[in-house]
Each structure stands twice: as C-alpha cells, then as structure tokens.
C-alpha cells in the first residue's frame, strides 16, 4: 500500500511525509499526473493559499487527473485540502473542485479572538468514523487557519470546533475525509489519526 501526497508547490507536505514514514507507510510525492496511478491512497496537504495551489496544479497538469482519482481512492484533505473540495471561497475568487456548494468564509471580524486561529483546540466528534477510532471526543488537535466552513450537510459533518464561533472541523463522504486541523502537527492524537487513515477501507 502506497500513499501519495499531492505537491502543489507551497505546503508542508514533508511534515506529513515524515509522520507517515514514522508510522511505517510507503509514500510518494505526487508532482506529475503519471504518479497518481502508482498510489492507493491520497493526501492533499494544507498550507498556502487556495488560488496559488489551484493554479500550480493546473500548471503541472495535475488538476483534472486528480479530480478523477479523488472520486476513486481513499482521500484525506488537510486544511486547504478540505477547502479545495468546495466551489467557492472568500479567499479571492478561486474555484476549488466544487464537489460541495457551501462557502468557505473568513472568521467574522467582530469576534474577540485572534486570527489566524492558531493552536490546540477541541474536536467535538459528532459521528463515529473509522478515522476517529480510539480517539476520544474533545481531543485537542492543532489548528492554523483564517478561513472556515460554517455550514454543511449534517450527515457529512463529523466534528465541530469552537473559536469565537462554531465551525465544521471535519467532513466525510464515502472515500473522502477532510479536516480543518493538522494531524501532522497534533502529536500522539495526530499519529493515531494517520494510523487510522492507513488502515481505512472505505
């Protein structure tokens, strides 16, 4: 089993790679379309801006091929990797893959909170999921983001988190799972989550 990590030119993909290799996984950095065929699962890392990520994927001609593989292989999107699944974001006029229509918005400006939302916050698990196996409700994971998903289909929302307002911190839909938090920086809880992803058979 091999896990492909999407390289869109500006992310902390090596942090994810190091976490997975620590757990004994085989990994491959995906920086061209032909490599997609070599992997069984996919991770879309999170960091950087949606616009530059999308234009980089188009430049290396990965954008459309990835869309096909996204529907077939167990997929984990992290932070920006969650936002790419949506059609629109307040972060510029960039289009993601558009699988879901809900809007990715900024934290409201009038809240007494620091933005970016940076640090360890609680993940309230609303529904069981294979990726939360042996992870307790209210476990803290590491977050770094300024944009968020406020509303989403109840059946596909797996956790929420509170920072000034409540937002959706993970979603799941058949072979797709995506988190606003960063498992690769979440210590033991993050490693457990990745281990669950490695074992996952949706």
């Amino acid at each position, binding site marked *: 089993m091999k896990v492909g990590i999407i390289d869109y030119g500006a992310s*902390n993909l090596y*942090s994810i790679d*190091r*976490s997975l290799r620590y757990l004994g996984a085989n990994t491959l950095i995906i920086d061209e379309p032909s490599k997609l065929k070599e992997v069984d699962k996919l991770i879309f890392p999170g*960091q*950087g801006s949606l616009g530059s990520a999308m234009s980089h994927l188009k430049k290396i001609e990965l954008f459309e091929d990835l869309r096909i593989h996204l529907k077939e292989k167990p997929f984990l999107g992290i932070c920006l990797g969650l936002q790419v699944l949506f059609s629109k974001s307040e972060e510029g006029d960039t289009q993601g893959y558009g699988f879901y229509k809900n809007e990715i918005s900024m934290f409201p400006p009038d809240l007494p909170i*620091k933005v970016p939302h*940076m640090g360890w916050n609680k993940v309230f698990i609303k529904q069981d999921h294979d990726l939360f196996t042996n992870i307790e409700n209210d476990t*803290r994971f590491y977050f*770094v983001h300024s944009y968020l998903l406020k509303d989403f289909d109840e059946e596909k929302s797996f956790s929420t988190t509170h920072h000034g307002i409540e937002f959706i911190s993970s979603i799941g839909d058949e072979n797709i799972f995506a988190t606003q938090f960063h498992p690769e920086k979440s210590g033991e809880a993050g490693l457990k989550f990745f281990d669950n992803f490695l074992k996952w058979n949706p």
Partner: protein
Amino acid sequence: MTVAVRIIPCLDIRAGRVVKGVNFENIIDAGDPVETAERYNAEGADELCFLDIDASYENRSATLSTVEAVASQVFIPLTVGGGVSKLQDIERLLEKGADKVSINTSAILDPSLVGNAAKKFGSQCIVVAVDSKREGEKSYVYTHGGKNKTAFETSAWIKIVEGEGAGEILLTSMDRDGTKIGFDNELTSSIAKDLSIPLITSGGAGSIDHMIEGITDGKADAVLAASIFHQKEITIAAVKDGLASKGIEVRL
C-alpha cells in the same frame, strides 16, 4: 471553550547540540536535541522553539540536520530562529521540518523581509521575535541578541511587523530575562490589547504562578521559557495543572 494557551519550551542549539550557558563564554552541553525534544513532547509541550545561538555558516548545516532529526521524531509545531536573514534561510528551514521561523535582527535591518516572507510562506509561519528593554516610561527594541539599541519603541515596532504580515509576536523582556521574578505583564498587556495576532510572552518566568500571571495579567496567548524547564525546576505538566486550576484552557 476556545483555543488552549500554549506552553513552549525554548532550546538553545549550537553545532547540533542543545547547550545552556549564562553568557557566551560559559556554554555547556545540555544534551541531544532529539532526546530533549522527545522529553518535552512527553511532558506535554504544545510547541518547541529552537534558537540557533551560533548561526555561523559552518554550523548552519548542523542546525538544518538537527531540525530534520527532531521533525522526524516529534510531531508538534517547531519554531526555529537565529540568524534568519533571507527568504532562502526560511525556505531551507521549512524544508527540513520547521513549521515557523522566528526573525529578529534581520527584520529591523529590513522590515520588508517580514512582508515578503509572509507573502511567500504564509503569515502562519513567520514569527517576529522582539527583544525589549525599558528606559524610563518607554520600551525600546534591541537587536543582535540584545546588544544594540534601536530607535524603535516596542509597541510601534510591533504594529509595523503586524502590518507587514507577521503571524505571531515573541516578546522578550530583557529587563526580566533570567531574573525569575515574573514576566513584564504591564508591557505585554499594553501590547496585547491592540494586537490582532497571537502574542508569546518571554523573559522572567520563575514559577507556576508567574506562568499563570503571564496569561491572566499579561494577556499573552502563549508562554515561553527556557531555563526553568531545562533545570527541571518545574515541569510543563505542573504548569498546565496550575493554569487549568485557574480555569485557563490548556491541552492536558
């Protein structure tokens, strides 16, 4: 019900080893960086901060290897500072596994470095470290490890780097550093009230109560300390228990 206050141990590194010393002539070896990082991780550190105290050309590669070795074994956020003066320095550190870099002297020499770095790598990974010293009613920024006074008042300088796109401020009180009489909470709270990005307080922590006051009185989002953790005077777990007993959110 919000994001937890962060406890950040800071490690001085030199030529691939953790060192400690009262001054530059008195540096002693304090262990292996990976082992030390693993110990702090096990104690519940929320992030780790590495400061390269001898960022000479020869030792730069040792620092990069150290960052890579730690980042391959400990999976919590890692900030690295010391001698960061250009975008290429930041790029190399991030490639090796740093999540954030802290910029100090070079930001003063060229404030646009902060803006350019934030644009290229994202604000979340650019920490501006500010060494501040009081002079009467005012506080001024110092560079080069506290050796050179600048014309910038601390509050004005922090507003400048916030505007440039810094993601976080690491504010060290030189007056309190090493004194163990507590953080300069008056300074920190005066800065924090006008700041939209997270503030880490540093310099002067000597007890668990000081840590608590840094949050309640200093209004900081995170506390950083070096010697009290290295010397095992107090553990990170004890600090967190103390904070939690006052109703402050921590990751236990």
